[in-house]
């Protein structure tokens, strides 16, 4: 079984190579669907193999420590040697399931979604490359290979956000995502350098073992490395203050938003921190930072999501908020809960994004929710699956989001991070509210769709609705399936070997006995979620059960008028884009211009003048070289006379 692991990476890159080389010709010769045959087929095969590998790993087929496959030595340079190798343990297996399942469904969905796009083959080529990079990142047993996958997913993200590169906003969004990610990656790269210098290895397993030993003598260094690694994770997972790129990444095609910017790539940061959990276990100070930034991002993004009108942006801020939850979980030491939420969130957020794509498709590329409404009868499959996703993310039992979110909040409470729990429960209420605001504005009430488009609204084709249904099922039952009962469910059993040591180290394990509190905690979070939904229900109306009339703009306005500052803050995303504009574009631009002037005038000027001095001197001295023997001989004679004469003059004639 372990021999199949390299295939998981090889198939997508083969699909990419094929599509990149021949896709265009196939598309022009035979039409669009045949062009997607190879890339989609490759991913379906990858999914099958990855599922087999994941199941083997989770059922203990590889033993507790997991299986390693080393392919070849990549960089043999003296003591610095890097192997290309893969390691499959239970954590990897969980990620494999999420990445390949959602990846496969998104590929299928894209067949229908991109059916009218000229860049069809290019889209599938990039998607395959992304799958390769993501799987490389997840499977690699070496920090440098992880970093390579890390940068490759960043590139794919860039290429796919800017897929419609003729649109200025898409090109700018792609650039922004790329640049902001680089900021985090600098930290990650520095962390890797620090790991190499101090442990002489970049193999993840060995490096973590040696870092644990270093902790006894140099605790500050371990904390520093943990923070640097977290810096990279925060960039890729869009945590404050590097969160600004994710909403703008929504300029890409919707399947990309679902796959890369909701379900897989943005989880890479969470995965990385979970992967190096022994490092963080030795650096509790860094974990507090992780928890703080995570929960702060969660409430920040949730507050922004309340007032956004672009359907995909609401989901983007929701993704930020949920990623914040995951980091908060990592920070409070609830490792299993973080991975649990990563998995359930991958499914329901992927579902929500694909649903939003279906909605956008139905109303002819309209993304503004103010021009939707009343769609539930016209696109029923989309509506019902999206409702499942919305209920799941809101944390209503027994859907998936309830279990994972509750485990995070419960662990935060029981591990003594009351402030994380307090903020988290507010975020849970906000989440329920903005999700049902989205549902209300989009599907309920009266139609505000452009009258010209209205008669043409239709449900999406089979290839799009099938993935929706396929994702709705895990969104509904995954939590119950692998997360119940909390702390003793399937997932907890799978991940125990991965996180056991760290949990012991943090000393949180004994708190698991406090079962009595759980009931109260669950009640609290469900109540908050129900309150959020009820308010959204009241404000954005529902004619579904004849309980309320159509959406109620007056009430909404009255509420927003009561807190104008908060409303404007939320609408303007707490002015982070403006702040960045001021600090980095205006002030930073001035500094850069000054540096440029210094470089151009002082540095280049010095170098250039040294250059021109030699040129002029050479041109003048060239004349001495006449090529005539007698001139040279004359020179020798004169030189001789001068030397002999000066000897006689200075030293005097010999006696």
């Amino acid at each position, binding site marked *: 079984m372990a021999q199949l692991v390299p295939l998981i990476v090889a198939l997508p890159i083969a699909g990419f190579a094929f599509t990149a080389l021949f896709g265009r010709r196939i598309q022009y010769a035979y039409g669009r669907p045949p062009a997607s045959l190879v890339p989609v087929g490759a991913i379906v095969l990858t999914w099958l193999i990855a599922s087999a590998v994941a199941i083997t790993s989770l059922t203990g087929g590889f033993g507790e420590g997991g299986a390693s496959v080393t392919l070849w030595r990549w960089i043999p340079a003296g003591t610095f040697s890097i192997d290309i190798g893969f390691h499959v343990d239970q954590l990897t297996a969980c990620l494999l399931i999420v990445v390949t399942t959602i990846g496969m469904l998104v590929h299928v969905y894209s067949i229908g979604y991109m059916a009218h796009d000229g860049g069809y083959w290019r889209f599938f080529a990039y998607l395959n490359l992304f799958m390769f990079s993501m799987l490389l990142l997840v499977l690699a047993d070496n920090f440098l290979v992880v970093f390579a996958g890390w940068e490759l997913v960043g590139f794919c993200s860039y290429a796919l956000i800017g897929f419609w590169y003729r649109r200025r906003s898409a090109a700018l969004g792609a650039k922004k995502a790329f640049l902001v990610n680089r900021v985090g990656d600098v930290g990650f790269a520095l962390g890797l350098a620090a790991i190499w210098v101090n442990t002489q290895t970049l193999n993840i397993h060995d490096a973590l073992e040696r870092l644990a030993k270093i902790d006894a003598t140099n605790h500050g260094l371990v904390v520093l490395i943990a923070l640097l690694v977290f810096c990279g994770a925060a960039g890729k997972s869009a945590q404050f203050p590097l969160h600004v790129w994710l909403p703008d990444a929504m300029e890409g095609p919707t399947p990309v938003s679902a796959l890369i910017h909701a379900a897989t790539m943005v989880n890479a940061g969470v995965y990385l921190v979970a992967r190096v959990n022994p490092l963080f276990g030795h650096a509790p100070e860094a974990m507090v930072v992780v928890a703080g930034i995570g929960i702060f991002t969660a409430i920040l993004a949730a507050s922004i999501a309340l007032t956004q009108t672009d359907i995909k942006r609401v989901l983007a801020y929701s993704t930020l908020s949920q990623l914040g939850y995951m980091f908060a979980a990592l920070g409070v030491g609830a490792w299993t809960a973080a991975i649990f939420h990563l998995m359930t969130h991958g499914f329901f957020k992927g579902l929500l994004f694909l649903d939003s794509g279906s909605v956008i498709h139905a109303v002819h590329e309209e993304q503004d929710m103010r021009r939707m409404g009343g769609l539930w009868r016209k696109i029923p499959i989309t509506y019902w699956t999206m409702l499942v996703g919305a209920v799941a993310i809101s944390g209503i039992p027994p859907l998936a989001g309830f279990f994972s979110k509750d485990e995070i909040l419960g662990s935060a409470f029981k591990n003594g991070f009351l402030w994380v729990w307090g903020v988290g429960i507010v975020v849970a209420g906000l989440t329920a509210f903005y999700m049902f605001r989205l549902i209300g504005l989009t599907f309920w009430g009266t139609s505000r769709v452009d009258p010209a488009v209205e008669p043409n609204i239709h449900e999406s084709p089979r290839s799009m609705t099938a993935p929706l249904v396929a994702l709705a099922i895990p969104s509904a039952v995954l939590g119950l399936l692998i997360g119940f009962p909390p702390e003793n469910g399937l997932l907890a059993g799978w991940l125990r070997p991965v996180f056991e040591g760290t949990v012991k180290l943090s000393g949180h394990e004994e708190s698991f006995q406090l079962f009595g509190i759980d009931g109260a905690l669950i009640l609290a979070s469900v109540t908050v979620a129900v309150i959020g939904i009820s308010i959204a229900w009241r404000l954005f109306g529902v004619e579904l059960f004849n309980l309320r009339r159509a959406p109620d703009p007056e009430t909404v306005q009255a509420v927003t008028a009561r807190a104008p500052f908060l409303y404007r803050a939320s609408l303007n995303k707490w002015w982070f884009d403006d702040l960045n504009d001021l600090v980095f574009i205006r002030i930073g631009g001035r500094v850069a211009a000054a540096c440029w002037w210094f470089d151009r005038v002082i540095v280049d000027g010095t170098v250039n003048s040294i250059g021109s001095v030699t040129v002029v001197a050479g041109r003048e001295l060239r004349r001495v*070289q*006449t*090529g*005539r*023997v*007698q001139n040279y*001989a*004359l020179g020798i*004679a004169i030189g001789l006379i001068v030397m002999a004469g000066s000897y006689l003059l200075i030293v005097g004639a010999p006696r």
Partner: protein
Amino acid sequence: MSNSLDSYLVLSGLLFAIGSFGFLARRNAISMLMSIELMLNAVNLAIVAFGSFIEPLKANASVIAIIVMAVAAGEATVGLAIVIAIYRNRRTPLVDEYDAMRQ
């Protein structure tokens, strides 16, 4: 005057000056070679004169003079061969036209 070291050295210096003038001023390659011979022989004359007037140098001087003659013979042979080879190529014996290196 006739039997002193100075008169030999003056003669030798004159010969050397004539030789170096010829080497620097004549354009013909053959004449330049001849001027070199003149300079070499001027030096030889000085050496032999030193040998016969200064007792400790007696034995060494004749040896050095013979070596200089041998070297001069070799130099003349090689120099003439080069001059003839260049002459065959460039059809001129004038050294100021041998300026291929400058181009």
